[in-house]
C-alpha cells in the first residue's frame, strides 16, 4: 500500500477519534447494553475492548437471530475472517488477513469453553446454546502457542449458573433440513449447577450427483453436552464440560468446470465421532488467581473419496483415523498496584493412528501409469495384471509439546504498556508403513501391435517401514501499548507487534507422492525421494504489526473498531516440485508472503428499537517469494484468501404488548466476500459477491418464532475450486433457502 494512503488513513482515524471524543462527552448518561457483557476469561481481560486486540464478539442475541450454530456461519461477520463452506465437516479451512491453511496445521486456534481443539479437522461442528463467540485476529501465539498465527476463536456456551430451565428448539428449512434440540439447565444446589444439551439434525442437502441420481450432500448429525459448574468455595470455581458429537455426511458436491455437473461414480462420505472433556478449576486469593485447564479429546473419523470426481474408474482414497489428545494449561494471574502479570505452563500430547489406502482402478491404471509408460516405449508396452491394486499407508503420529509463557503490563496514567514472551518446544514423530503388492507384464510388440508375445513379468512389491521425528523450538514475543481516551469508557488507541507460528510436522497426504515415485522407481522411472524431504516441513512464522482503535460513546450507543495491519510471513509451508520435475511434489518451507490491510466494524443503537452493525475487511496478501520449481509466483495474490469481507445488518424491534406476542422484530443482513483467487497463477477467481439474508421474529417471554431466509437473491457463487489430474472442479455455494425456527424456554 502506498505510504501516502497509509498516512491518509491514519489521519482519518485520528480525526474520527477526535470527533468521537467530542461526541462522547456530549451525549446523555443513559446506558444501553450493546452486547452481552463478556464473562471472565482466564487469559484475557473480561473486556476485550480495553485490550490491544482486534476482536469481534458475537453475542447470544445475534447468534439466535442469524441462526449461527457453527463456525462457518461466523464467516465475514468478523472482518477479514473467512471460513468457506465446502467439502465436509472435515474441511475447516480458515483464512484470516490472508493467512490460511488447507493442509495439515491450522492458522487459527479454537477454544470451546476454554478447551483447546488441537485438530482442525474437528473444528466444524454444530453447537446449541452458544452464549458468545469471540474472533480474535492477529497472532495469539504468546498466550495460546501453536497454530494461532492468524488468530483465535473462543466459543462459550450458556452457563447453568446464570440460566435455569428447559429449552426446546425445532427448526425446519430448505433442503428438507430438520433440527431439534433440548437443553435442561438447573441448580442442584446454590453452588452447583449442571446442564444437559442434546441436538439432532438432518438434511437432504442441495446438490445431486448425476451419476447416482441421488443427493450427495446429505447429513445426519447430533451431539450431547453435559456442563457442570461448581462453586466449591468462595474462591474456588470448577467447571467441567463433556461433549460428544457425531456426523454422517455423504459426498463432496464438486462439479466439473467443463460440464457444470456433479457426476462421480465412487462412494464419497465422511463420518466422525468425537468426544471431548474439559475441566477448568480456578482458585482465587488476594494476590493472584491460579487456573488449571485440562482437556481430553478423541476423534474417530473415516473419509472416503472418489478422488477423481469423475464417472470413471480412476482411484479412490480412504482415510481412517483414531486420534486422542491431552492438554494441560496452568495459568497464574496477579497484580501489584498498576502492574499486572500473567504466567503459564502448557503441555500437550497427541497420538494419531491413521490408515490411508489409495485404490487404483482400471481406468486410472490405464491413464496414469500404462499410458505414460507406453508412450515412452510403444515397442515394449506394459499391461497391468490386476484391474485394481491398493497403495497402502499406515501412520502413527505421536506429538507432544511444552511451553512456558509470561505477560506483564503496566499502567501509567492513561497509557498501558504490555509485553509477553512464550518459549514453545514441540516434538513430532511419524511411524509409517507403506505397502503394495501388484504386478504388470511387458509385451514384445516389435513385430506386432497386439499384446501377444510376453517379454517379461514384473512384480511391484513395496513394504517400507520407517520412523521420522522433528523437534521445534519457538520464541514468541509480543509488545503493545494502549492509550485510553477516558478511564470511563472503552475508547482507546493501540499499537502492537507480535509473532505467531504454525507448527511443523509431517503431511501424510503427501505419501501418495512418495509411493507414486516408489512405483515409478521400480519401473525404472523417476527418482526415489527422501521421505523426510517429501512429507516433512518446519514451522511457519509471522510477524504482525498493528495499529488500531476501539471507540465507544459514553452512552454505549455507538461502538467502532478500526485497525491497520501488516503481516510478514516466513518459511511458508508449501508444496513444490523439486528440480523442475513434472511429478513428485515435496513439502518445503519455501515461501515468503506479506499481507496488509484494514479492518473496521461498527455497532450503532440509536434507540431501543433499532440496531445497525457493519464490518469491513480489506486484505492485500501476496507472495514475496515463491518458486515451486516450475513457476515463480512472486507478486501473485495468495489463493483462497479473500480480498474483501463485508457484513452489514439492520434490526428493528417493535414491542407489541399483545397477549401472545411481546414484540416483533425484523432483520436484514448482507454478507459479501471476494475477490478470491483459486490458484497461485491467479488464473482462476471468484469475483466479489454478496448474499442477502432476512428474518422476522415473533417473540414472547417464553418462546419465539423466527422466519428466516438466506441468499434471498439466489446468488450463484463458488466456494471452492481445485484441479485434480488436470481437471478443474468447484463447489457451488448454497442456493436461496428459508426456514422456520421455534424456540421455547421453560424457566424453573
Amino acid at each position, binding site marked *: 500500500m502506498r505510504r501516502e494512503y497509509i498516512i491518509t488513513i491514519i489521519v482519518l482515524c485520528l480525526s474520527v477519534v477526535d470527533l468521537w471524543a467530542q461526541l462522547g462527552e456530549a451525549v446523555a448518561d443513559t446506558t444501553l447494553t450493546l452486547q452481552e457483557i463478556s464473562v471472565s476469561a482466564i487469559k484475557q481481560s473480561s473486556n476485550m475492548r480495553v485490550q490491544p486486540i482486534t476482536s469481534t464478539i458475537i453475542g447470544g442475541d445475534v447468534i439466535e437471530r442469524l441462526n449461527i450454530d457453527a463456525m462457518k456461519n461466523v464467516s465475514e461477520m468478523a472482518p477479514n475472517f473467512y471460513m468457506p463452506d465446502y467439502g465436509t465437516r472435515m474441511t475447516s479451512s480458515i483464512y484470516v488477513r490472508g493467512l490460511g491453511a488447507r493442509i495439515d496445521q491450522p492458522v487459527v486456534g479454537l477454544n470451546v469453553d476454554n478447551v483447546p481443539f488441537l485438530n482442525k479437522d474437528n473444528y466444524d461442528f454444530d453447537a446449541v446454546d452458544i452464549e458468545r463467540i469471540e474472533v480474535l485476529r492477529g497472532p495469539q501465539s504468546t498466550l495460546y502457542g501453536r497454530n494461532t498465527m492468524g488468530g483465535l476463536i473462543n466459543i462459550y456456551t450458556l452457563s447453568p449458573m446464570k440460566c435455569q430451565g428447559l429449552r426446546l428448539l425445532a427448526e425446519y428449512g430448505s433442503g428438507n433440513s430438520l433440527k431439534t434440540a433440548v437443553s435442561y439447565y438447573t441448580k442442584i444446589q446454590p453452588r452447583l449447577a449442571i446442564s444437559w444439551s442434546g441436538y439432532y439434525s438432518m438434511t437432504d442437502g442441495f446438490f445431486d450427483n448425476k451419476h447416482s441420481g441421488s443427493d450427495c450432500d446429505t447429513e445426519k448429525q447430533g451431539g450431547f453436552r453435559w456442563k457442570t459448574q461448581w462453586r466449591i468455595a468462595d474462591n474456588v470455581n470448577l467447571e467441567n464440560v463433556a461433549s460428544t458429537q457425531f456426523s454422517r455426511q455423504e459426498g463432496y458436491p464438486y462439479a466439473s468446470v467443463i460440464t457444470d455437473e456433479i457426476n462421480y461414480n465412487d462412494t464419497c462420505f465422511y463420518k466422525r465421532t468425537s468426544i471431548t472433556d474439559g475441566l477448568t478449576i480456578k482458585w482465587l486469593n488476594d494476590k493472584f488467581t491460579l487456573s488449571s485447564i485440562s482437556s481430553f479429546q478423541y476423534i474417530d473419523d473415516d473419509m472416503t473419496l472418489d478422488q477423481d470426481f469423475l464417472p470413471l474408474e480412476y482411484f479412490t482414497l480412504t482415510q481412517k483415523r483414531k486420534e486422542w489428545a491431552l492438554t494441560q494449561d496452568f495459568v497464574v494471574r496477579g497484580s501489584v498496584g498498576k502492574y499486572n502479570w500473567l504466567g503459564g505452563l502448557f503441555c500437550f500430547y497427541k497420538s494419531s493412528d491413521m490408515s490411508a489406502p489409495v485404490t487404483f482402478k482400471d481406468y486410472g491404471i490405464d491413464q496414469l501409469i500404462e499410458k505414460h509408460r507406453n508412450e515412452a*516405449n510403444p*515397442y515394449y508396452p506394459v499391461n497391468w495384471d490386476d484391474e485394481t491394486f491398493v497403495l497402502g499407508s499406515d501412520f502413527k503420529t505421536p506429538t507432544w509439546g511444552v511451553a512456558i509463557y509470561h505477560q506483564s503490563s503496566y499502567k501509567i496514567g492513561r497509557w498501558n504498556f504490555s509485553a509477553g514472551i512464550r518459549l514453545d518446544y514441540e516434538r513430532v514423530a511419524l511411524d509409517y508403513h507403506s505397502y503394495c503388492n501388484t504386478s504388470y507384464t511387458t509385451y514384445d510388440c516389435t513385430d506386432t501391435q497386439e499384446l501377444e508375445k510376453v517379454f517379461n513379468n*514384473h512384480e511391484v512389491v513395496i513394504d517400507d517401514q520407517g520412523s521420522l521425528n522433528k523437534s521445534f523450538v519457538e520464541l514468541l514475543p509480543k509488545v503493545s501499548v494502549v492509550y485510553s481516551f477516558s478511564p470511563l469508557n472503552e475508547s482507546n488507541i493501540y499499537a502492537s507487534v507480535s509473532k505467531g507460528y504454525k507448527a511443523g510436522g509431517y503431511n501424510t497426504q503427501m505419501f501418495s507422492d512418495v509411493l507414486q515415485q516408489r512405483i515409478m522407481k521400480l519401473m525404472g*522411472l523417476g*527418482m526415489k525421494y527422501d521421505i523426510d524431504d517429501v512429507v516433512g516441513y518446519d514451522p511457519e512464522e509471522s510477524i504482525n504489526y498493528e495499529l488500531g482503535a476501539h471507540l465507544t460513546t459514553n452512552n454505549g450507543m455507538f461502538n467502532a473498531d478500526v485497525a491497520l495491519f501488516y503481516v510478514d510471513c516466513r518459511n511458508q509451508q508449501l508444496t513444490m516440485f523439486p528440480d523442475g520435475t513434472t511429478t513428485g511434489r515435496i513439502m518445503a518451507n519455501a515461501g515468503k508472503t506479506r499481507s496488509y490491510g484494514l479492518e473496521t466494524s461498527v455497532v450503532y443503537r440509536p434507540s431501543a428499537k433499532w440496531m445497525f452493525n457493519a464490518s469491513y475487511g480489506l486484505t492485500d496478501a501476496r507472495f514475496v517469494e515463491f518458486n515451486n520449481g516450475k513457476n515463480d509466483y512472486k507478486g501473485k495474490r495468495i489463493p483462497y484468501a479473500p480480498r474483501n469481507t463485508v457484513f452489514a445488518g439492520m434490526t428493528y424491534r417493535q414491542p407489541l404488548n399483545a397477549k401472545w406476542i411481546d414484540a416483533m422484530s425484523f432483520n436484514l443482513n448482507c454478507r459479501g466476500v471476494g475477490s478470491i483467487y483459486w490458484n497461485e497463477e491467479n488464473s482462476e477467481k471468484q469475483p466479489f459477491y454478496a448474499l442477502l439474508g432476512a428474518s422476522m421474529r415473533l417473540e414472547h417471554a417464553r418462546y419465539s418464532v423466527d422466519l428466516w431466509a438466506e441468499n434471498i437473491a439466489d446468488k450463484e457463487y463458488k466456494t471452492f475450486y481445485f484441479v485434480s489430474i488436470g481437471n478443474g472442479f468447484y463447489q457451488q455455494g448454497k442456493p436461496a433457502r428459508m426456514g422456520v425456527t421455534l424456540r421455547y424456554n421453560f424457566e424453573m
Partner: protein
Amino acid sequence: MKTIKSLLLSLISITVFASCSNDDSEAKTVQYYDDCFHHVYNVMSGEYKIFEAPQYEFEFNYTDITANVKIKNVKFADGMPAINMTLENLKWNISNGFKVINANNVIPVVDGNAMPEYMLNSVKIELLDRYVGVYYEPIVNVYFVINDMFKVTAVQEDILYFGETSVTSMSGGNPYTINTPVYQLSIDEDMIADLKIAGAKFAQGMPSLDMEFENIPVEISSGVGYTLKCESLIPEINDVPFPNYQITNLIGMGTFSKGLDLSFNCVMTKTMDDGSVVELPPYKVDADLHFEVPAE
C-alpha cells in the same frame, strides 16, 4: 552378490584390524580384494589373455610405512600352474586419498622361496578406501610387469562413479547439468562392459531413468586404463529394451585411479497416432566422472 561381498569384505577388514591391534608396538590393517580379473598382455606376442579369480591380501603397516602384498592364484601364461606370491616390505604413501605403492625390481616370495625368475620389474598399487552409503566400495588399481614380458593389470569388475553430467540438445539451448546420476561400470572376463546409470536425466522436467547399456566392448591399456566404444546400442530400463531411446557414438576413456570421461548421443523417436515414427532432436551427453562420493 556384489553387495554381500562388499559387506563381508568390510567386515573382515574391520575384524582383522581389530585383531591386529593386539600388538601395541605396530599398527596394521589387512584388506582383501578379489573383485577383479587379470588382463595379461604379452609384450612378445602382442596378445592378451584373461585369467580369472586372483585374490589379493594387502597388509599395511602404519608404523614403519611398509606393506606386504599377497597375490593368490596368479597365472600369466596358458599351461602354467597358478602360483601364490608375496611381495614384502614395500614402501607406501598416501596420495590424493589413495594408499599408493610404487616399487621396482621386486623379487616375490613363492611358497616361502624367493623367485627371481618372477621378478616384478615395476609394481604399482593404488587403493582408495571408500564408503557409498553403508557399503564399502573401494577402488583398487593393481599393475605390475613380470620379467619385462608380461604386463598384468587387475581389472576391477564393478566400479561406481559420480560426477557431473552435461546434456546438450542438438536443437540448441543451454546445456542441462546434473550431479545426481550414479554410474556403475561392470567389466567381465570377455572384455564386455555393462554401464548402468541410476537417475539419468536429459532435460529439466523429465523424470529420471535407471538406464542400462549392455555389451559395450572394452579395450585395456595396460597400467593406464580402459576404453569403451560402441557405435550404437539399445538401452534397457528395468530390463526392458527402449528402442526409441537409441544410444549412439558412445566413447568412454577411463583410468583406474582417476575416473571416467564418457560421452554419447541419445537419439529419441516418437510414435505418432498414425503409426509413423518421428525422430526428435538428439541429446549429446558428456559425463565427467570420478570416484569421490558426493556429500549428502
